[in-house]
């Protein structure tokens, strides 16, 4: 029964990810006075891409063809670790947050290899930029997550969220810092403005798009889906760690339904905030990114410090 719910939850994750992307696009369009595409447009795009024949260069090795499947499955596995509508599921109990970061790193490794594999200038440039940014973003992310895990004294997300829930509303200075750090890292890791612009194909600025420039057909669909999934993963991480109220603690139908409604509401609000931020902020220079991520790291560090100094028992 528990495994069934765990599988259902992951399926829900995969199914809802394009919806979140569509909603985010809708918010941005409304803010920028543009005509917005329908809410279900990302599903149509994916469907269209899945039906198209992929074109693969003659120079491509097996890696180029296998990479989308690896990336997609690694991202789905990462999604099983994060509690979406219920805590205490067997999948999230068996792996902790470091495994999740590991899955992300695994997917990114293959994405960067695939970018290099084809031998175009853009692919190599994108891969090198992606690795630079991720090497700075990962420590900041772990620092932010460690603040949570130190509070709950476990690295398991599911137990940590239950711990936060049990304590009720406690204002923790360290969580304020960790929240900001995680938001900054999430923006960088999912390739949103101001670090990367997901909608442009301008050669000077693109990072993620540069790596997947050679992909088409179902390969492209899988990679796009994986990046939508990643965006949703970070959203759920932020929503459920810092505002876990509403998540189901028992597996009754009523609780699960309530949990689903709660997470949809939280993600919708987060997407509106992200949309506003993306509209207000201009994309920054690539060389400014290290300052930005350095600041995220600093926030994570301050979160740890204020946990140890302000909150820990002595």
């Amino acid at each position: 029964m528990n495994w069934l719910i765990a599988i259902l939850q992951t399926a829900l994750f995969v199914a809802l990810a394009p919806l979140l992307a569509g909603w985010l696009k809708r918010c941005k369009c409304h803010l920028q006075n543009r005509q917005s595409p329908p809410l279900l447009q990302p599903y149509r795009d994916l469907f269209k891409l899945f039906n198209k024949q992929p074109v693969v260069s003659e120079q491509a090795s097996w890696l180029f063809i296998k990479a989308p499947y690896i990336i997609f499955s690694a991202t789905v596995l990462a999604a099983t670790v994060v509690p979406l509508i219920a805590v205490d599921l067997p999948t999230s109990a068996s792996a902790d947050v470091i495994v999740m970061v590991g899955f992300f790193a695994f997917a990114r490794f293959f994405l960067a290899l695939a970018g290099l594999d084809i031998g175009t200038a853009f692919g190599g440039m994108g891969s090198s930029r992606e690795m630079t940014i991720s090497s700075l973003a990962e420590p900041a992310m772990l620092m932010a997550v460690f603040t949570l895990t130190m509070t709950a004294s476990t690295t398991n997300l599911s137990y940590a969220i239950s711990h936060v829930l049990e304590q009720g509303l406690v204002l923790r200075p360290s969580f304020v810092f960790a929240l900001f750090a995680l938001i900054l890292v999430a923006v960088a890791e999912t390739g949103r403005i101001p670090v990367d612009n997901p909608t442009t194909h301008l050669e000077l600025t693109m990072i993620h798009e540069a790596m997947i420039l050679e992909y088409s057909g179902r390969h492209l669909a899988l990679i796009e889906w994986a990046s939508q999934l990643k965006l949703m993963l970070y959203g759920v991480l932020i929503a459920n760690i810092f505002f876990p109220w509403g998540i189901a603690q028992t597996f009754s139908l009523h609780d699960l339904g309530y949990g689903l409604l709660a997470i949809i509401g939280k993600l919708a609000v987060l997407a509106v905030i992200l949309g506003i931020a993306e509209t207000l902020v201009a994309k920054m220079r690539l060389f400014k990114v290290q300052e930005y991520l350095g600041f995220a790291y600093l926030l994570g560090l301050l979160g740890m410090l204020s946990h140890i100094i302000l909150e820990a028992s002595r």
Partner: protein
Amino acid sequence: MNIESQDLYTQIILSMAALVGLTSFLMLGQGRLLRLIFVFAVQGFLLTLTTALAAYSLDNHHLYISAVLTLALKVIFIPWMLRREVLNSNLHRDVEALGNQTAIMLGGASLMVFSYYVLHPIVQTTSPVMLNALAVSLSVVLLGMLLMISHKQAIAHVVGFMSIENGLFFAAIVATKGMPMVVELGIAFDVLVAAVLFGIFFFHIRTSIDSLDVDLLNKLHEVDK
């Protein structure tokens, strides 16, 4: 001290302390003057909230007056004055080049650790909440000094000076359960007088070296270096 076992007032005060510390860090890394002034106003606003909260929780009515004074001076008047100064001297489009920003930020983080280290001996004799709030305000003071060292514009120096004053004020609010009214009014007027004096200084610096960049004060050497 476990934060779960504290009452809501203490939790809010500690969160406010953390946020005030955060605004200090934001100011430290800020190259644009208008944004620097905005963050300074936000810090003033947090201070106002803390004062009002202390007034409410201690049932101490004259602290409300102090909160209103803080709001009027540090959130509205001084930022408005500095902003006008920046716009007048056409500095709002300049981005100040901060030498090695990462090093400055990490230096700031180590200053924060240092202020805890310095205040640690007090922990045995006072309540832990007060220690934490005092440590944060000491680090706000030190960060204000670091801000003055690392920035070159005279306006940034004034913001750094005022944020030092913010740190001291925060410590006073949290530690003393409300100072005597005379002291508070005195501090408020001191700040006001300082703001006016700084305005005069700006005027003098600008007329003598044609800029508000204090590094150019070296021009006043009689011998060329």
